[in-house]
């Protein structure tokens, strides 16, 4: 069983890496990119029977820093 966790900086927390990517896209001629946010995807291979609640607990305890990051869990 698989779970996928998406971790992003919260809205309102400046993302300097995303800004750098936005500038680079602009200099490559891609106009109209108004914002870039960079996050990470964490894939988990879980034993059968694992619940979304357990993955949420993993996010709260380790996978995300909820002071500055938000997360979303996809199961299966």
């Amino acid at each position: 069983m698989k779970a996928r966790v998406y971790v992003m900086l919260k809205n309102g927390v400046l993302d300097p890496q995303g800004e750098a990517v936005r500038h680079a896209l602009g200099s490559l001629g891609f106009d109209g990119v108004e914002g870039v946010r960079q996050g990470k995807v964490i894939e988990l291979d879980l034993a059968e029977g694992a619940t979304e609640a357990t993955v949420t607990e993993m996010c709260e305890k380790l996978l995300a820093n909820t002071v500055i990051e938000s997360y979303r869990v996809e199961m299966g």
Partner: protein
Amino acid sequence: MKAAVIVFPGSNCDRDLAVAFEQAGADVTMVWHKDTALPEGIDMVGVPGGFSFGDYLRCGAIAANSPICQSLIKHAERGGYALGICNGFQILTETGLLPGALRRNGGLKYICRTVGLEVASADTAFTSGYNKGDVVNVPIAHHDGNYFVTDEKLAQLQDEDRIAFTYTDNPNGSVADIAGVVSKNRRVLGMMPHPERAADTGHGGTDGVAMFRALMDQFATA
């Protein structure tokens, strides 16, 4: 003062911090991250700079969940002192002992140079050797030192006089120029600059010495 310095895989300022404590007169024990208990009678725990666990996942995140950090948290909750420098500051925020988080530097570059720090509060055991408003020169060396707290938490830190140091010329984008903060009981300090690298004439500056001396005085008079 009996001090312990925690060593993680990837710590690289652990011995510098131990020497700074020793030169001030402390007994220092090095503690490995897999140890489950701090030595008996420890007054101060130093959490050193470096790149614990290769900065994997987030700076300090894996270290904050290591066995020794459970003891560190208990030590702090009992009213014990702790000093986290650079990666140590990142670790202390990840444990929740200090508020906020350290983001990638605003300019995206790793910065390694000496900066000016203003002593924003002299009312801590760490900063009592300075006067409020003093400017000291201390090196920084970090890629993720851009301090973040919510507006609400910032107001609380300001009300409670918990900002220990601010940058005179903000190098990394930190909220309110913050370089170091203390816990609510004022016994845990986290800071990005390295006072242990300004603790000997061979370092090119000795502005950090007053911090280690003040800590020794704290325990001498206690």
